[in-house]
């Protein structure tokens, strides 16, 4: 019952867009959508998605193969460094580039920089598959007369396909929702257009209809992703422990390969961090706003904790039902929360603004509304973490505990909680990270006077006060780093980001 309520709340953005389109009528909706401006945005967004998907696929797969399957020196360090860009929000990454050179503005720059931010989303699942692949398959191919290149193309690549497609689809969803980076790179897409419309003129109908088109594109991608997920199998078949995978000797190609990975790290991590340091140093010659920094950090931490706790609390009963009481209704509930993945922050924000003004004016312009927006956006993330945590405590352990004389409460205390606590903690940390680095919904929903690290960074960098913006960005990166490191550990590799 409670779970159904949570799901209904999570579906507010969907209801909102559908309801809005319905209320203004078919003809008006068509005239609003069927405009050259929308066509241009659609073209821009589409080109960006295609470019970034191609580039992240190449970067992610290449890096994963070098780290997991070759004798590349320093693989452990590279593994961490290659995932580390996730700790740098995409809008901070673009800031790093734009503040150094204006040449990155426009399509090519947007493709490069957004891909540099998101390629770890391909790297992580592909590396996980490469690590788990049964070496016997490749040995069999070799024994049938296949050379290394043909083996990669005909044996390895087909097995990577689900991970590759899944990863790039997540990248595509992120790009559709991306706002800060693209605004900064002056490359207009649906998200930036909706934001501008909303900010400049509070142009309700046009913004809402654009949101509708955006949501529709996201839903299509998500449906694709769900279909892929259906028949996708990570683990090896058969029993017995997997053998250690023989690595490919790089030999004379070691230096160029090192150079390639090094260059990728330098571009994805070195440039934004270096630029941050540069602005910190040159910016500190002006006054260093220590009090402001402390205050905004406190606000961000507070919102992060509140958002993480609310999200996890809302997600827990649904995840519990899905794991322990599997049935038609619970599967439907789970699928519904999953749609949150496809709803960009800007659509959530628009929906909540409108819904709050009409039905709950008391919470409009309060932190409550903002925290609810976070909960809607990050519910799927929390669900995945909690499900993974609950898998650590299979029901058979409850049976054993009961047979040994422990009642339900004692079993919860002595068996279930100790087993799922680490997973719940990791999930909370992931949602916390997402909230602290969230920009779009925070910009639209934060009550007047509430300043977070993200919004302060944004207002400074959009007024080209790069030195003043840098400390806020640096704090966000520092807060994100430990959680990102968590992703390089084996257990949490499959977590969505």
């Amino acid at each position, binding site marked *: 019952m409670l779970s159904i309520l949570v799901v209904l709340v999570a579906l507010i953005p969907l209801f909102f867009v559908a309801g809005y389109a319905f209320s203004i009528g078919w003809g008006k909706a068509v005239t609003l959508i069927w405009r050259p401006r929308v066509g241009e945005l659609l073209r821009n967004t589409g080109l960006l998605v295609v470019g970034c998907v191609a580039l992240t696929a190449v970067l992610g797969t290449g890096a994963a193969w070098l780290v997991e399957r070759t004798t590349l020196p320093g693989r452990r360090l590279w593994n961490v460094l290659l995932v580390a860009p996730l700790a740098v929000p995409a809008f901070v990454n673009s800031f790093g580039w734009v503040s150094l050179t204006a040449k990155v503005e426009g399509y090519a720059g947007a493709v490069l920089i957004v891909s540099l931010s998101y390629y770890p989303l391909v790297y992580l699942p592909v590396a996980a598959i490469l690590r788990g692949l049964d070496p016997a398959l490749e040995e069999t191919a070799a024994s049938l007369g296949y050379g290394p290149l043909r083996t990669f193309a005909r044996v390895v690549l087909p097995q990577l396909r689900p991970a590759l497609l899944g990863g790039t689809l997540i990248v595509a969803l992120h790009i559709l929702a991306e706002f800060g980076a693209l605004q900064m790179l002056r490359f207009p897409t649906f998200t930036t257009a909706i934001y501008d419309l909303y900010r400049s003129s509070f142009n309700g109908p046009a913004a809402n209809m654009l949101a509708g088109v955006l949501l529709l594109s996201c839903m299509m991608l998500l449906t694709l992703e769900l279909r892929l997920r259906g028949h996708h199998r990570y683990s090896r078949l058969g029993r017995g422990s997997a053998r250690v995978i023989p690595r490919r000797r790089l030999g004379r190609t070691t230096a160029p390969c090192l150079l390639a990975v090094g260059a990728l790290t330098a571009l994805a991590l070195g440039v934004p961090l270096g630029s941050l340091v540069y602005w910190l140093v040159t910016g500190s010659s002006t006054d260093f706003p220590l009090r402001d920094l402390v205050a905004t950090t406190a606000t961000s931490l507070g919102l992060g904790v509140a958002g993480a706790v609310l999200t996890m609390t809302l997600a827990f009963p649904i995840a519990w039902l899905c794991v322990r009481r599997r049935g038609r209704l619970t599967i439907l509930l789970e699928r519904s929360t999953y749609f949150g993945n496809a709803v960009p922050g800007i659509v959530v924000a628009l929906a909540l603004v409108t819904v709050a003004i009409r039905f709950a004016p008391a919470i409009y312009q309060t932190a409550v509304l903002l925290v609810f927006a976070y909960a809607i956006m990050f519910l799927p993330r929390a669900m995945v973490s909690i499900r993974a945590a609950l898998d650590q405590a*299979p029901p058979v352990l409850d*049976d*054993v505990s*009961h*047979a*040994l004389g*422990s*009642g339900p409460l004692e079993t919860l205390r002595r068996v279930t909680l*100790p087993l799922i606590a680490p997973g719940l903690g990791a999930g909370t940390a992931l949602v916390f990270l997402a909230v602290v680095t969230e920009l779009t919904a925070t910009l639209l929903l934060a009550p007047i006077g509430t300043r977070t690290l993200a919004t302060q960074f944004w207002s400074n960098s959009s007024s080209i006060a790069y030195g003043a913006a840098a400390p806020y960005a640096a704090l966000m990166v520092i807060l994100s780093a430990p959680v990102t490191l968590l992703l390089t550990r084996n257990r949490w590799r499959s977590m969505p980001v």
Partner: protein
Amino acid sequence: MEIDARMTAVTVRNLTKAFGPSKVLRGIDLAVPEESVTAILGPSGCGKTTLLRLVAGFDGPDSGEILLGERMVSGNGSFVAPQHRAVGYVPQEGALFPHLDVADNITFGLKGRERRSGHRVEELLELVGLDPLVRSRFPHQLSGGQQQRVALARALAPRPSLILLDEPFSSLDAGLREGTGRAVIEALKATRTTALLVTHDQSEALSLADQVAVMRDGTLAQVGTPHEVYRAPADLGVAEFVGVAVVVDAEVVDGSASSDLGPLFVLPGFDAGRARLLVRPEQIELVASPQAGVEARVLDVSYFGHDAAVRLQVLGSGRLVTARVLGTSVPMPHTVVRVSVTGPVAAYSPED
């Protein structure tokens, strides 16, 4: 039902259970004598694990009764929760608590001081044949067989009168299975604990249990000693499930039969008429004397070292039979040998 001087540890009467439209248990009656090991043997999906879960109290039956000793735990509207049944449970693959070390796993079911002091850990480890040094290890540092033994020690620690074992050895390698099974039975005998063992492995059931209950489609097809179930199965279906069966058609007169394999003695219970006879491969012997037995051609031999399975075609009738012979006297393929059947055989009417 045979009368036993011992008390009955578990009594199950007319137990039924359905999950949705599928009837998993269709009226089970079973008595488990105290301090015995009873194996429930059946193919996967026959309902044996469901029966175990009902006895443990993890699920309630649709109808019927379960008594532990004299105490009604299920039936007549009463239901005792599993934590109040004092029944030990060893699930598949042990299911040790992964966040606790071996000592804490073993003492999980103990109360108060006995748990905190942990002085019984070593005694219990010794009981299941483990080195006391493993007490501080975590489950993932143990082999499958060791995990299984710790799971048994954990179940035995609160001194339950009954232990339920759910396919405890199926996840172990063949080499480990025998030794672990023996160690488990010895620990059960040493503590005089009654056990109900669920398995789909015939040799496991026959070698470890005092009583075997053969389960088929939610009913018990036969309950008896391992010897009875193997040598005098209730029907040919049970016969084929508990071992390799050579079935021969024959005419029975006055307790003896004439068949393709020569004259055979028939176990009491079948008087006269057309019959199907159950011959076990180890009853078929190769004989040297040219007077005894019938002639057969050796088709092929599977040699196992300690013994061998010999597939033969009886000359004349052309019937195919399998004989199990000692590894010391294996015939060459394509030779002609003489075979005869030793010991009585069970007979069934052809309609069965």
